[in-house]
């Protein structure tokens, strides 16, 4: 036996050592979290730094004179002839009026300031308003993407190489005169993809993602929950169910590109479904998220206390009633959270969709499950690979949109859990 | 039926409970043997006309009373703290009741001592002492046996004590009859004979108490309350 006095002394001595150990342990933990947080902040800072300009656009506001002569238009009253008119000329003229120092030889340089699609914009407006002919209208056009980039990153050499020195001077002048302005980039959110970065938007990708997610949710949630309930509540415990269980766990670890290959082989080649459509994308992502949903749903069902089942059985509820009235409502928050996390994972998935052709260049905004479409992460992937400088910031901006979607889905998961959770 | 002592006072998961019951048992036996000694001394004082000894008996009765209170207190404490059941419960209940009987035996001893004092002043051996000696031997043996039956948890011995009581009753009747004869022969004898009669009466009561103690021992060992039941039924129960 140890003498009580001595014991107190020994304990007192060892106490210091223990406290030191605890402190050290806590320090490790704080360090780990700091590193994680720091890298996260760096990542976000980088993306926001690169991408925030993607939410801005550069416009040129010109007083355009619709002169039939300059437009090489013989009969301004014939709508078909109007379509064939030269719409570049009035723009150049308008510009050179503002920039008198530009000579005839600089017309090409002036032209390089205006968006290549500005002429078709002018044409469309003129067709819509035939009475404009012969008047002067103040119209706002998008600037050329090179101007856009230069304008938004003033003083940064890397962003000005596409413009000649004269052009740079022109832009500076135009900005001083208020012709070139920077404003919120509504084009980014209202249009689909485009070869011209200034006109490229994420709306097509967002709609595509929503369509794919809808298909995935509608298929994977009921199937996953039903499978989980069957396996957990009704399936007999034997080799077959053990085998199924092991394989579900394995499927969750299968690389997602394999699911893409599967989708390509089964849905497209075997069943002859069209390529690049949200429906097939949803099917492939359903396959991918099912294991996650089944596993999390089973965990949620398992976490329902057996005492509740017993209580229901004790008053004479049948198996079905026990599951429907008690187990399912109690497991629902867990199932929903698991499903939303799975969906978020699917939302960020690129690889399997590349294989089923959702990587195509699609300008139109998809209108249904069988329209060719792309999704947000694929759009990011496409833009990030484009050579134009302006696409880099578009890609970063698209990443921010994607992150916003993911964060809001996670927030929804948390809110749902808080809302539905019941204590027992 | 005999029960193993260890199976009654030992074997509990709680050692303290074992000790409580053992100490209750020891205290009860201590009181029992003390009361028996009181009775022996009172009879001896009577026979020898020893006033000093009789006084001693009268004084010692206070100790017996104190023991009774102590044992009762202990029993109540056990019930409150341990909630005894079955044999333990019967033991505690039986002890509480037997203690009352023992205390009464002590009182009878005190009465005998008082009579001894009164008679010793007369100085001469009176008539009826033969009967007293005879009955007192018998009663002392019964009391001794009853205590032994408790100590050994021996219901057969207890049953024998109960049967003895019948004999004591007979002897008591015979003795009173002969004393009555003395009194009728010579009226001067009446007061002395009455004193002896009281002693006999006290001894007969002691026999009854010994009998009661035996009944409680049987209740304790067999688990059946055999008061007011015919002896034959008790015999069947004990002989099982």
């Amino acid at each position, binding site marked *: 036996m140890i003498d009580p006095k001595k014991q107190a002394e020994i304990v007192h001595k060892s106490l210091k050592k223990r406290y030191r150990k605890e402190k050290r342990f806590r320090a490790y933990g704080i360090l780990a979290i700091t590193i994680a947080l720091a890298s996260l902040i760096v990542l976000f800072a980088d993306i926001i730094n690169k991408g925030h300009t993607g939410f801005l656009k550069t416009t040129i506001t010109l007083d355009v004179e619709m002169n039939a002569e300059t437009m090489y238009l013989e009969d301004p009253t014939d709508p078909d002839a109007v379509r064939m008119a030269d719409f570049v000329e009035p723009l150049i003229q308008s510009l050179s009026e503002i920039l008198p120092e530009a000579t005839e030889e600089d017309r090409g340089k002036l032209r390089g300031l205006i968006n290549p699609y500005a002429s078709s914009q002018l044409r469309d407006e003129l067709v819509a308003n035939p009475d404009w002919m012969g008047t002067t209208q103040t119209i706002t056009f998008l600037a050329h993407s090179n101007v856009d980039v230069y304008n938004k990153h003033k003083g940064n050499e890397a962003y000005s190489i596409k413009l000649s020195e004269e052009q740079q001077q022109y832009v500076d002048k135009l900005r001083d005169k208020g012709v070139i302005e920077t404003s919120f980039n509504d084009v980014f959110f209202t249009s689909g993809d485009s070869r011209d970065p200034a006109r490229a938007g994420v709306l097509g990708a967002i709609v595509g993602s929503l369509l794919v997610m809808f298909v995935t949710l509608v298929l994977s949630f009921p199937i996953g929950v039903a499978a989980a309930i069957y396996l957990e509540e009704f399936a007999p415990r034997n080799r077959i169910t053990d085998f199924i269980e092991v394989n579900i766990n394995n499927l969750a670890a299968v690389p997602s590109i394999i699911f893409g290959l599967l989708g390509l082989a089964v849905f497209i080649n075997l069943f002859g479904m069209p390529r690049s459509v949200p429906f097939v994308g949803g099917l492939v992502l359903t396959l991918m998220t099912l294991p996650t949903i089944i596993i999390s749903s089973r965990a949620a069902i398992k976490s329902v206390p057996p005492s509740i089942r017993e209580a229901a059985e004790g008053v004479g509820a049948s198996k079905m009633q026990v599951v429907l009235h008690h187990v399912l409502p109690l497991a629902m928050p867990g199932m929903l959270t698991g499903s939303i996390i799975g969906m978020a994972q699917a939302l960020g998935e690129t690889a399997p969709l590349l294989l089923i052709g959702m990587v195509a260049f699609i300008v139109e905004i998809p209108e249904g499950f069988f329209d060719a479409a792309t999704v947000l992460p694929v759009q990011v992937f496409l833009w990030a690979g484009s050579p134009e400088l302006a696409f880099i910031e578009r890609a970063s901006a698209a990443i921010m949109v994607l992150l916003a979607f993911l964060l809001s889905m996670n927030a929804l998961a948390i809110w749902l859990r808080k809302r539905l959770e019941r204590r027992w | 039926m005999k029960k193993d002592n260890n199976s009654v006072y030992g074997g509990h998961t709680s050692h303290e409970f074992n000790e409580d019951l053992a100490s209750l048992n020891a205290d009860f036996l201590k009181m029992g043997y003390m009361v028996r000694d009181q009775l022996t001394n009172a009879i001896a004082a009577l026979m020898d006309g020893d006033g000093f000894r009789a006084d001693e008996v009268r004084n010692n009765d206070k100790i017996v009373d104190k023991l009774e209170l102590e044992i009762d207190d202990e029993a109540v404490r056990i019930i409150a703290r341990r*909630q005894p059941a*079955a044999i333990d419960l019967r033991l505690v209940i039986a002890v509480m009741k037997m203690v009352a009987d023992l205390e009464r035996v002590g009182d009878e001893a005190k009465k005998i001592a008082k009579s001894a004092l009164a008679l010793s002043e007369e100085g001469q051996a009176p008539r009826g002492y033969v009967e007293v000696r005879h009955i007192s031997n018998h009663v002392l043996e019964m009391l001794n046996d009853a205590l032994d039956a408790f100590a050994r948890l021996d219901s057969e011995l207890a049953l024998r004590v109960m049967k003895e009581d019948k004999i004591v009753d007979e002897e008591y009747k015979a003795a009173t009859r002969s004393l009555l004869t003395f009194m009728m022969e010579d009226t001067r004898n009446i007061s002395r004979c009455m004193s002896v009669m009281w002693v006999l009466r006290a001894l007969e009561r002691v026999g009854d108490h010994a009998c009661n103690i035996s009944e409680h021992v049987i209740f304790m060992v067999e688990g059946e309350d055999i008061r007011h039941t015919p002896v034959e039924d008790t015999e069947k129960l004990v002989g099982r």
Partner: protein
Amino acid sequence: MNMNDTLISEPLEPQEMSTPVNRPVEDAGAQSAKVEEGKTVGKPFADDPKFKLRNVEVFYGQERAIKNVSLDIGRNEVIAFIGPSGCGKSTFLRCLNRMNDSIDICRVKGQLMLDDEDIYHSKKDVVELRARVGMVFQKPNPFPKSIYDNVAYGPRIHGLANRKSELDDIVEDSLRKAGLWNEAKDRLHSIATGMSGGQQQRLCIARAIAVSPEVVLMDEPCSALDPIATAKVEELISELSESYTIIIVTHSMQQAARVSSRTAYFHLGHLVEVNETSKVFTSPEHELTESYITGRFG
């Protein structure tokens, strides 16, 4: 063909099971006393019983948890099952409304008759049985719903009430019987898990009696409650005993002594002794019962 049967190899005959793997129980008393299988001292049988149980055996896989138990349970009596941990009293209790059905490896043999109907008959619906034989569990386990919904759940699923007012009556009546009406009437629609442990357990009793069962099984109903809540539940049990048959498993011998009219003592799967409670607690016949009751093992 039941799936369970494929899991268990050929059922063994009782004589082959004569040396089952017994869990060691520290019992000083059991060394000297042996239990004879199927032999119960005291008065296990009754005239016109509610439950008539003969030669009941329960197997957990290969292990025999209940060994040849025969017992009658009378009408409107309170019978307590006592015994050391692992003696099978809870297992036996749960056989009476087939709560063991959900355990795959559990098999029940023998004759279990409720009012002359075999409760393990293949055509007997367990839902109907449980409507007649209600159960209250060790830990209060109200559903995470309102107090009202808890009590109304049973009558709802069995279709006992046609109108809302009928259901209201059932709920009020059950809560009154469970002595909970005064405490709960003002918050019938607040969540039941917000009540105290004792109230929750009485709510569970109310829920059990709301379907008007004939028998109420109670598996250590007070083991999670404080003494005052326990006293209330015990009081309730003695009130309920006027209209229900109550079978209660308890670890507290004092509780068995207080609430029951008969007591059954189980030991290692054997039913050792059944008798009037007063008899069992003052002078038990079997040595093992005595050892257990006096706290000599277990």
